[in-house]
């Protein structure tokens, strides 16, 4: 087991890459990212799944090759397969996805069931963040974000930059606060308790980039803007989707403390050169945020806190422009 994988696709008007790295080779709890595109309908689905290692640390069984697998490991892969199945084998009604996953997990529970579970333990727990998109010949692409937990989906465009289109299942939704505090999740996919698959719908002018990522990518940076900087910095030095995928894998292992997976779909670009050219205008914007952080002397926490807050205050409005609203109680 290598501990990392990169897959890519380049077609007319459609570019895609998925990146997957493991902290401990062979034991990563992130599933390989999902990407399926149907050319006839112009629809596709892209998603990431992060098995919850703490709550799902219990053993789930042994693989055919003899490797022990945790509940978290199994849950992320299983849920990935279920989302793919929902896309390929159903009418793709978003409201049905929850039932599709929940029913299958309860069935699967029998095989991976443990006798004693504490309140902190969950059966087959995982996060999911997926984007179901449709782009015909129109100038806009429709999308629906489907998520549970703290993995995220984004829309990236040349005008407003990276915009989060999911809302973490945590008490706070402030991206900077989440970076510094890592609060517990209030909802995730699992087999033994009720959970919710949130749905947020939108449309975005094409060309645009859709991104899904687990917290291994966005949870170990200094400011929310730095994640966009990682995406654009690696894009800038790449010539193809394959190179961009590899650059993203190289970059993330340098700063993350977790398994990390990320999937990208670029719609409406004539090729990689146009993608890189169109997004180059954003590079200067996010580079300024990164430069301010880089200029702080090591150990100067007071300045770091102030600069970080200032960066977030300036970055936040566009970043949250498409963020769904917390549902009324």
């Amino acid at each position: 087991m290598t501990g990392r994988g990169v897959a890519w696709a380049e077609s007319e008007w459609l570019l895609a890459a998925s990146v997957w790295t493991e902290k401990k080779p062979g034991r990563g709890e992130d599933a390989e990212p999902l990407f399926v595109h149907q050319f006839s309908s112009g629809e596709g689905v892209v998603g990431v799944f992060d098995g919850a290692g703490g709550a799902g640390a219990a053993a789930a069984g042994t693989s055919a090759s003899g490797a022990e697998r945790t509940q978290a490991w199994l849950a992320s892969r299983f849920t990935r397969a279920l989302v793919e199945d929902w896309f390929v084998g159903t009418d793709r009604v978003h409201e049905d996805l929850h039932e599709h996953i929940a029913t299958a997990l309860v069935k699967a529970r029998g095989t991976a069931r443990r006798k004693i579970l504490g309140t902190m333990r969950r059966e087959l727990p995982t996060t999911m963040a997926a984007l179901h998109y449709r782009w015909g010949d129109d100038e806009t692409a429709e999308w629906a974000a489907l998520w549970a937990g703290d993995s995220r989906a984004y829309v990236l465009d040349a005008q407003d930059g990276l915009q989060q289109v999911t809302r973490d299942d945590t008490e706070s939704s402030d991206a900077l606060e989440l970076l510094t505090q890592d609060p517990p999740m209030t909802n995730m996919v699992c087999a033994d308790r009720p959970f919710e698959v949130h749905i947020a719908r939108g449309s975005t002018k094409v060309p645009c980039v859709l991104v899904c990522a687990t917290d291994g990518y966005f949870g170990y940076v200094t400011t929310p803007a730095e994640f966009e900087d990682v995406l654009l910095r690696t894009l800038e030095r790449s010539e193809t989707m394959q190179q961009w995928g590899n650059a993203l894998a190289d970059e993330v292992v340098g700063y993350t403390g977790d398994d990390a997976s990320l999937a990208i779909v670029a719609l409406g670009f004539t090729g990689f050169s146009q993608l890189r050219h169109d997004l180059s205008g954003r590079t200067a914007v996010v580079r300024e945020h990164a430069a301010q952080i880089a200029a702080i002397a090591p150990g100067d926490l007071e300045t770091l806190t102030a600069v970080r807050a200032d960066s977030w205050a300036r970055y936040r409005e566009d970043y949250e422009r498409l963020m769904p609203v917390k549902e009324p109680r």
Partner: protein
Amino acid sequence: MIGDIDTYDPIVEEIFPRAVRLLDRLESPSMDTALVLEPMRGDPVLVSAGEKVPGAVLGRYRRAARVTLRVVQCRFVEDDIPTADPGFLQRAEVRFTCQVTDPVEIVRSGIRDMTRAVQPSLAGIMSDVLSEFDVSEYNTALKTLKRELEVLRGRGGIALGNFHVKLLNKSEYYDHTRDMRIESMRRRDMRGVVDGGREELIAQHLVKHDGDPTSLLAAEAEAVDRDKDRMIEMVRISTDEDADPVEMREARRHVFGKIFGDPAMLKPPERKRLSRRDVIASRRDGGPAEVTAGGEAEPVEPREPREVAPPPVPEPPPAPEKRVSRLRGSAAERRGR
């Protein structure tokens, strides 16, 4: 009162379908919309993306509405929000995201302008919060307002969130506060300079002029010259026979004061303002009216020529005590006697 506004219509399409729709069947909604069908009788039917439309060709529907489910950023500017200071009204710009959570409810309530639909309740919260705070409590007011808005999630099929509030009159407040602070700081600093006496003032002057004493020395020399000139002028006046006696007396006082350092000499004597009766008495005595310093002479009424018997030859009156007239020109008159 609402000012500038960004809004949207949540009902993107409204159709009144014919009874039979062979060629224009009702289509399933797109991914970011929901279709609400209002039958002739009974409850509305909600159709989500991917779901088949019941009775797409033959269904009897009074109305069909497509409702957007997108997250949309809205904005409005609220003018004339009261604060704790009755003389200061606040303006605030509120940005927030808005999302339809119940398309049926939106169609039922007929909302076609989302921002205007939610503005009254948001404006009410802003008014309640800001009226508690003085203009000087800008930061606390803003924090409280954001906290109150964050709690608000929406209702009636609408969810609200991601609030960004900007108080637009803050620059006025900041300008005022900054000016006050700068003035206060200057006063505090200058008080130290003044308390330090002459040496501190000289030091301050040198600081302000990069240690160059030229202008200070020049100013001092100029002051000495002015003083000398004035002294010479005073001496001249005090010895000039043609000078106005008043000026002469003042000049003497000044010169004596300078030479002998007697402050009493410098101080003009207290002078009693003459009452009208004193003036009349003085006139009766034949003396000219006297005026108070800085005042005008009481007018001396011309004496009526009276026909009287030739007066007896009087004894020569005693020489009147020589009085210094304070009326201009009287000195020359006296000289002519």
